[in-house]
């Protein structure tokens, strides 16, 4: 069983922009490897080169654990390398307006929590962290809340995601193999395997 995750504590990092795609999170050339090792060093590499004050290059956010994002974060390619790169850099949770479905699933599969809050709340949190980057953020999955200084917001997290993180079943392999006879049963039932 994978570890149980009920809270994430640490500084935040504001990463502004809608539709930030996984090609930007980790450009395709860094996928040319047979392990995920070292991906953390290349997170947002091209965006950082184009933008010297990119949050991932800003030492003020160097210890960040909670990434604050806007809408449709992680769209595009299904590369798990994207959440892997974020996690290996040190990010433990993403808080944003919305996430692409595949990115959210890939994140869950490696124990990286993606939770949503409203656009206004993201803006408040970003402004707060920009003004005081050291502010500790406390994300509680159990209480469905995020606290930053005096600010406390309710987070939205899908029940299966929350359950999986709280119960440590986010690594799904074990659970999927629990009842393997039933899997076999389906294989014997579907006509394209059984034979037409």
């Amino acid at each position: 069983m994978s570890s149980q995750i009920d809270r994430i504590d640490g500084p935040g990092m504001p990463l502004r922009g809608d539709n930030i795609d996984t090609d930007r999170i980790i450009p395709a050339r860094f996928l040319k490897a047979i392990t995920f090792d070292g991906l953390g060093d290349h997170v947002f590499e091209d965006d950082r080169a184009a933008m010297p004050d990119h949050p991932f290059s800003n030492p003020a956010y160097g210890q960040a654990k909670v990434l604050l994002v806007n809408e449709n974060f992680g769209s595009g390619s299904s590369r798990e390398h994207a959440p892997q790169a974020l996690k290996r850099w040190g990010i433990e949770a993403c808080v944003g307006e919305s996430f692409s479905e595949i990115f959210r699933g890939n994140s869950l599969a490696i124990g990286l929590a993606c939770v949503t809050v409203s656009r206004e709340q993201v803006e408040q949190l970003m402004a707060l962290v920009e003004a005081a980057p050291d502010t500790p953020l406390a994300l509680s999955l159990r209480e469905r809340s995020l606290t930053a200084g005096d600010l406390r917001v309710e987070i939205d997290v899908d029940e299966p995601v929350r359950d999986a993180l709280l119960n440590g079943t986010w690594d799904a392999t074990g659970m999927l193999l629990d009842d393997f006879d039933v899997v076999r049963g389906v294989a014997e039932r579907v006509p394209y395997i059984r034979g037409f």
Partner: protein
Amino acid sequence: MGKTLLRKVWDQHTVRKLPTGQTQLFIGLHLIHEVTTPQAFDMLRVRGIGVAFPDRTFATTDHIIPTLDQSRPFADPLAEAMLAALESNCAEYGIPFWNLDSDRQGIVHVIGPELGLTQPGMTIACGDSHTSTHGALGAVAFGIGTSQVRDVLASQSLAFDPLKVRRITVDGQLADGVFAKDVILEIIARLGVKGGVGHAYEYGGSAIEAMSIDERLTVCNMSIEGGARVGYVNPDQTTFDYLRGRPFAPQGEAFDRAVSWWRSTASDPNADYDDVVEIPASEIEPRVTWGINPGQSVGVSDTIPATGAGVDEALAFMGLSGGAPIRGTKIDVAFVGSCTNSRLSDLREAARIAKGQRVASHVKALVVPGSQAVLAAAEREGLDQVFRDAGFEWRGAGCSMCLAMNPDRLDGEQVSASSSNRNFKGRQGSPTGRTLLMSPAMVAAAALAGEVVDVRTVMSHV
């Protein structure tokens, strides 16, 4: 109320309800390639788990392979290591693998349908977001990440949340010069790049029904660009005719029995949809993207937007001006290829435009067939010669400049007219490279003119 195809397939493949509330779904067909799988096999080894159904997984290589010199070892040691890892993993676990020396090798989403592996009513998964492509034959196909590849290898199943179904009806006739690519770009422009999150897109209506399977593959391919992980077209006679005789399709009388089951998987006429969207075919014109996500497109006779969310950032990156016509935008590179538009019919459309013409002197133009079968068929028809005579390079099959993990890539701030599916920053291999997405015919027309043109004006001369 009747059921949708999604609902029927979902029910038929449900293993059980998981304690998390998700559904464990059986995966009927698993397709793998070299980029998203080496870590999955490593995780299996670390855990001492085997592959549950090695005969339900099929492998090919596409993303990293060079399209010019394919001699081994590859010049790029990293690419070589990835292919070598896939070779040894497939050998170790007994997974069928169509390598470069096979006439079945090609882009994973091109060969699945082509070989008849992809069939109506199936659940399909692949470590690639464009797995939605396979829905064109009435399959429910999911793009997944590497940990999920591991899970499919281990258990032939995955955990999913339920999906809603949005029916997108395109009725009427597409005008000449308007292609499946334009239909899906229009859909994404209208519904947005996140409009499909949480949904499967069911495409229907007379314009979709009139499409060939190749065209439906193009539409379903870009579902993910609209945020929909799954997209499909209900199977019909076009689907069955396409599948008949393909190597992995049922043969003889079994084929007829299969057809009756396939037919039964289609959405019922009174099916219950979560949402319905109607788009008249007559409103669609050839489209071109001007921005940095696939929702940012305009009709070729329109101007580039000057205001709106994300417009400033996109225009700054693209070096384009709001309010200017998209037509006349200079290009440096033209790319016909990718799992969106690299099938025989795509190459025919591009060749029809290119025939007897010359690529503009400042343009580098590439045609990259989606599979070795497409390549061979195109050569039998002499399309390679048409392209070569016009000044296009004719390359080996693979993903190539769609994501530039091989040597084919943009340089610096080059502008590419591309038949692929993503215009993200840096997508075609140069961090500052710019991509304009359009249909293969529009790419060919742009290659000749050296700038974006309306293919309809060119077509009247051919």
